[in-house]
């Protein structure tokens, strides 16, 4: 081949700002400055790492990612490089392995992960890591998702040669209100130390002791009580850091992970819900570099207990007479009675309070219901708190942006409704997904003055206790839908478990009410069989949602509008890069 006349591969790559790298005998192109580990992983060649985490600084301490590396020969003065038929220089392999996490790729570099050098290096590193490991996998919560287990199975040896007694270290140490430490299981990757220092900005954890007695510990007088402390459990590659909440609850191989989003604040942190048989066991963050990077706050992570709590309403409740207790009812007759009642209500005396915790689809159906019944008094309940400057934003409603886009409401007319109830102008009230005695500040005594109070909610609250009819809705883990976060990003909720008991998804209830209330079918979305179809209809009606579909949103979401809001943690991460 006349490679001299044509452009050499190195020049072609340089024009794109890339370099040519040979991995396991095949040539690839990567951007300059890519880490070897990232480069290998991106082409499907797995490089095992303990200490390397893409969001943290490089430590290079675990030596698990050793690969064999080679470079073109260094030329003698005055010599010109020779190229083979394909336009590459020959690679001279280095006699010892290098770490893949701390080194970057270079032009004409060669990497081998399948050779004897590499295999031997990995085996030896694992043997050293396991010398003092307690091998208590049967009682370790990390078992099943433990890197040490996986790598030992893939690259390790079946038996170990150390006959000496193992070094004893601390086990089951409480280092914070939510995290337990087991020093024997630790592989000293220092991910937790770096996380606390670099992401949270508090120096709490460090390495103490020497040699084999090296261990992770809190600095004297400090505890791991940050609101982001449980992220160290996620990033810990072994079972050294474990969650107190999840401790001994369930083995991870029984759990099904559902990608969805957190609904505790407007950020819409991407999460996995881990469930087994209608029971939710834990929530972990899911990487989304536009929303939450790899992290999530502890209080949001632990706020799932209400889903399987005793307080859940599992059947429709109906108050048959004034002052009578609520009795459980069947769905169909209750829905018929409710629809009939709604048609009889005077729309001037009726108001709807919807929650900004509902999905876009449910807000849209609620808007349609109001339109069908001729009700003009409709608003959301605003909810705000202190932002923490990281992931928690001031707006504690997950879908305020969506309510603004779809219903054009932001809670400003709530005062009118409250006043109307107080002075008796509003006789009928429909509440969807809210406890109006809390943030909306409508006292129970005012609620009891109403002629008719219909509540759709998942758990028992002061509002449901005062209601004439309660239709059991579901929590965010039991339904599909979309929400728009504070930055204007449309994200998907996925169903992790089926609706508990006889409860039904809120969109399903609203659709049944729309169907039961009759009216012009062409106006209604009563025909839609799923939130996905309702989303299609929203996409056809609202300019902001133009071209949006369930598949297009995907698990990582798409930005659909500009709000001017940003997420501080993401801002910091981007400026760092």
């Amino acid at each position, binding site marked *: 081949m006349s490679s001299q006349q044509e452009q050499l591969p190195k020049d072609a790559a340089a024009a794109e700002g890339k370099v040519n790298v040979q991995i396991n005998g095949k040539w690839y192109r990567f951007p300059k400055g890519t880490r070897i580990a990232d480069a290998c992983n991106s082409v499907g060649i797995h490089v095992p790492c303990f200490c390397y985490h893409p969001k943290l600084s490089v430590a290079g301490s675990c030596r698990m990612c050793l690969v064999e590396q080679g470079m073109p020969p260094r030329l003698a003065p005055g010599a010109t490089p020779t190229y083979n038929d394909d336009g590459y220089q020959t690679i001279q392999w280095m006699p010892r392995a290098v770490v893949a996490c701390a080194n970057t790729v270079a032009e004409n570099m060669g990497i081998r992960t399948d050779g004897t050098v590499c295999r031997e290096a990995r085996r030896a590193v694992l043997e050293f890591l396991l010398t003092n490991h307690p091998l208590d996998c*049967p*009682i370790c919560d990390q078992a099943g998702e433990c890197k040490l287990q996986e790598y030992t199975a893939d690259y390790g040896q079946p038996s170990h040669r150390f006959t000496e007694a193992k070094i004893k270290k601390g*086990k089951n140490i409480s280092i914070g209100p939510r995290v337990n430490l087991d020093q024997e299981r630790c592989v000293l990757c220092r991910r937790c130390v770096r996380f606390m220092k670099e992401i949270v900005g508090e120096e709490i954890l460090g390495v103490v002791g020497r040699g084999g007695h090296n261990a992770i510990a809190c600095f004297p007088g400090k505890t791991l009580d940050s609101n982001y402390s449980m992220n160290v459990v996620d990033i810990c590659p072994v079972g050294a850091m474990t969650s107190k909440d999840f401790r*001994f*609850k369930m083995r991870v191989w029984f759990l099904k992970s559902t990608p969805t989003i957190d609904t505790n604040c407007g950020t819409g942190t991407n999460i996995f819900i881990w469930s087994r048989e209608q029971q939710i066991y834990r929530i972990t963050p899911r990487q989304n570099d536009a929303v939450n990077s790899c992290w999530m706050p502890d209080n949001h992570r632990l706020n799932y207990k209400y889903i399987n709590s005793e307080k859940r309403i599992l059947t429709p409740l109906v108050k048959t007479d004034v002052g009578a207790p609520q009795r459980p009812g069947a769905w169909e007759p209750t829905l018929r009675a409710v629809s009939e009642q709604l048609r009889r209500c005077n729309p001037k005396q009726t108001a709807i309070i919807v929650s900004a915790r509902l999905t876009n689809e449910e807000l849209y159906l609620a808007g349609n219901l109001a339109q069908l019944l001729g009700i003009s008094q409709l608003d959301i309940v605003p909810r705000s708190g202190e932002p923490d400057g990281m992931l928690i934003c001031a707006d504690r409603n997950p879908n305020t942006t969506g309510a603004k886009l779809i219903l054009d409401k932001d809670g400003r007319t709530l005062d009118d409704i409250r006043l109307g109830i107080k002075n008796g102008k509003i006789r009928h009230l429909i509440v969807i997904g809210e406890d109006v005695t809390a943030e909306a500040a409508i006292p129970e005594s005012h609620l009891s003055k109403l002629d008719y109070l219909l509540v759709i909610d998942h758990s028992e609250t002061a509002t449901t206790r005062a209601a004439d009819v309660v239709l059991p809705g579901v929590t965010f883990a039991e339904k599909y839908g979309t929400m728009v976060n504070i930055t204007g990003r449309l994200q998907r909720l996925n169903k992790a478990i089926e609706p508990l008991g006889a409860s039904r998804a809120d969109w399903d209830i609203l659709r049944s009410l729309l169907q039961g209330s009759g009216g012009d079918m062409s106006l209604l979305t009563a025909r839609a069989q799923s939130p996905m179809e309702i989303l299609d209809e929203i996409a056809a009606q609202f300019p902001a949602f133009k071209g949006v579909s369930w598949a297009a949103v995907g698990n990582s979401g798409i930005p659909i509008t500009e709000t001017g809001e940003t997420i501080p943690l993401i801002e910091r991460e981007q400026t760092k890069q």
Partner: protein
Amino acid sequence: MAYIPVKRPKFSILDRIYVVELVRGLGITLKHLVLSLLGKSRSKKDFNGAGIGACMPFPEQRWDDHLPSYYRGAPALVRGEDGRERCVSCQLCEFICPARAIRVVPGSVAPGSSCSKQEKAPAEFEIDMLRCIYCGMCQEVCPEQAIFLSQQYLITPTDRKQAVRNKEQLYRLGGIRKGLIHKWNQFK
């Protein structure tokens, strides 16, 4: 494809008429009938039979003393010689159980107890004997040698709830297993 030639027996004309062989067959079955009525069936001794045929008349006479050592009956949990619950509720048996008969609710060991290094022990351990197929996978997979198939074969629940055995029943059935395991010994 490998062809394996099968040698078929050659039948004589007498065999092919079938009637003679039929009569011989009837003779064999009649012999069995008569012998079992007389209580002289072959291998009656091996089965420890007492009534007609080679069978052991069950409720009056039981297998208990005659079970072979390898007999595998109902699964049971065992305690160590030191009285420690050997099960650490790792739930591998629950995972491997092909009939999904096992249900484990993990729990923790009280910090002050003698085997607190074990940290974890089952809060509840249930085996549904209506589902159990006695395959022994649980015994094979157990990393702690805590579950064994006992020799119990007489399992007659009178309702579904009774068929589910809880932790206490399983420990009572399993008893104490000889042989110390030092894995969780905190002084070693």
